[in-house]
């Protein structure tokens, strides 16, 4: 059986989505993956770093936008740059360190040198080789045409025609304002991002974090058994859906109902709540953050987060962890997890260390939750390559919305943006993610 051309695959997805189904092929297909890299990752705004990772002049981190290696630097003038890591002379990587501080990047091959803002700065044997200086902009490192940040999160787009970041984030910006804007000093990265490779398609992880609350009490039941978690069976019942448009989807939990009416602001200690600055929140943000704050979410395409009160044991003090994570596409059946633990700038060092460790214990390469997610995701990519399933035209089932006995209609009382539902059932967020994926794959294919 010859592989179907890309447009025929996308037609299949479009047809299947009408019945809330997804063809298995999109989870492991070379053609789809190549198109995603071109149409999604080189066109959309993609997260690259948190501002706190490059606080000082000359600080840099090495990052990825899809398959592109980029340097994110704070230059000597204090500006943030996102630049291709490849030398303009022959293409060798000018930086092979994950982070550091540098006034210049010098290519190891012939010694072409660039300032930390990307400007071409010099080369060996200048007069003999080139007769004099080259134009510092024309031969500078390739810059991402758009770089901007929101609530400390730096994003870049490689598309000259990209809309402004605020427009791209849309209602997700409103969500980040509520989550990170709780305190005027904001959040910072604890340590550095942790990385590990999972033999799964990047969309599988992104989909999970749109709000797959249905898997929590089954896949992660061992945590309830050993009391590193409690109440997982209510994950869907108390789940609250926030479908924000543009492929950005979140799910929260109504902890004030699931736990007790005083369990406000995700279970943050009273001493923190007193320090939160709530006057900047609108009515819906305040209601959401107080009673049913976002637990997980995915900002299209591949940035997700989790914020949840976590334990090393339920009889030990909990800590509300916040992890941002990025699902870096490596291949059709491989992703690299980047896991940043975030802490509040106003926290004491001791509290920051405690929340970091609890965060890593639950969500990280050795995390007692995340370990099990990785292996559930890996076998999805295996069937994604199945010629048998493809020939039979088989799909994955996202049909809870049609069949659930629970009322999942949009909450008419919701005054915030997007669609809000007062249940975690329904798989609406996952479908919204894939509908947006299809739209981007179509529209950017015409450009």
């Amino acid at each position: 059986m010859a592989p179907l051309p890309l447009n025929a695959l996308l037609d299949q997805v479009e047809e299947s989505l009408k019945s809330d189904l997804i063809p298995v092929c999109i989870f492991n297909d070379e053609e789809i993956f190549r198109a995603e890299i071109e149409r999604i990752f080189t066109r959309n705004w993609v997260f690259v770093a948190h501002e706190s990772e490059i606080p000082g002049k000359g600080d840099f981190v090495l990052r990825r936008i899809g398959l592109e290696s980029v340097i994110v630097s704070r230059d000597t003038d204090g500006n943030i740059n996102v630049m291709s890591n490849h030398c303009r002379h022959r293409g060798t990587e000018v930086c092979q360190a994950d982070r550091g501080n540098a006034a210049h990047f010098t290519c190891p091959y012939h010694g072409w040198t660039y300032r930390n803002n990307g400007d071409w700065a010099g080369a060996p044997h200048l007069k003999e080789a080139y007769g004099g200086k080259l134009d510092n902009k024309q031969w500078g490192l390739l810059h991402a045409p758009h770089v901007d940040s929101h609530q400390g999160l730096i994003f870049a787009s490689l598309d000259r025609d990209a809309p402004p970041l605020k427009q791209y984030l849309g209602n997700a910006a409103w969500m980040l304002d509520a989550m990170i804007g709780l305190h005027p000093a904001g959040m910072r990265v604890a340590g550095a991002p942790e990385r590990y490779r999972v033999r799964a398609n990047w969309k599988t992880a992104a989909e999970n974090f749109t709000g797959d609350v249905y898997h929590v009490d089954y896949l992660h039941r061992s945590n309830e058994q050993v009391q590193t978690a409690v109440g997982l069976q209510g994950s869907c019942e108390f789940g609250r859906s926030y479908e924000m448009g543009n492929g950005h989807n979140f799910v929260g939990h109504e902890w004030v109902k699931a736990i007790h009416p005083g369990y406000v602001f995700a279970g943050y200690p009273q001493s923190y709540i007193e320090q939160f600055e709530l006057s900047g929140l609108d009515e819906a943000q305040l209601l959401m953050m107080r009673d049913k704050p976002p637990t997980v979410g995915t900002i299209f395409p591949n940035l997700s987060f989790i914020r949840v009160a976590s334990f090393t044991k339920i009889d030990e003090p909990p800590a509300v962890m916040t992890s941002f994570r990025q699902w870096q596409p490596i291949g059709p059946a491989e992703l690299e997890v980047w896991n940043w633990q975030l802490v509040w700038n106003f926290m004491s060092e001791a509290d920051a260390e405690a929340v970091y460790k609890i965060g890593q214990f639950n969500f990280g390469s050795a995390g007692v939750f995340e370990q099990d997610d990785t292996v559930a995701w890996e076998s999805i990519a295996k069937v994604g390559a199945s010629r048998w399933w493809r020939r039979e035209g088989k799909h994955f089932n996202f049909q809870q919305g049609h069949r659930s006995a629970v009322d999942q209609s949009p909450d008419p009382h919701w005054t915030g943006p997007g669609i809000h539902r007062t249940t975690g059932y329904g798989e609406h967020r996952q479908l919204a993610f894939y509908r947006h994926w299809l739209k981007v794959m179509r529209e950017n294919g015409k450009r």
Partner: protein
Amino acid sequence: MDAVQLRETVTQFFAFEAMLLDEGRFDDWYSLLDDALVYEAPLRLATNKRADEMVAGAYRFADDKKIIRTRIDRIQTGNASAESPPSRTVRSVSSIYILGERDGVVAVSSTIIVYRQRANDPSGDTIHARRNDRLKFTPDGLRLCARTVILAEVSLSTPNLGIFL
């Protein structure tokens, strides 16, 4: 104890530990841990200077003995997917270098290579690390008080650290 005996005792301890973990005898392994155990893997990056590789205060895991107990209990529920079925592992400990001994505690640096074939994976992962340990002499033999696992990989190629190193 002379140097040869010390080396023999330490080598036997590592070999025993490797066997217990390879055979899934977690409770027996747990009995080799000192109550004040510190068991951690610092986060490592590729940096231009070797001295900058370790990120201060950042870990893949930073466990005490109670957390190890919880991890073992979780594996033993049989419902921890990452280790159900349990990985088949082969641990090879070598390059054992005894740094010194003081007050009944011996400091040892060694290397470990773990071959891990997880569940029904067609092929396995290999985890390479240097381990900097402190082992304490007790009437019942050596006990592990501290282990710092320095992983070779900056980005792990095994999908999770569901096993002990």
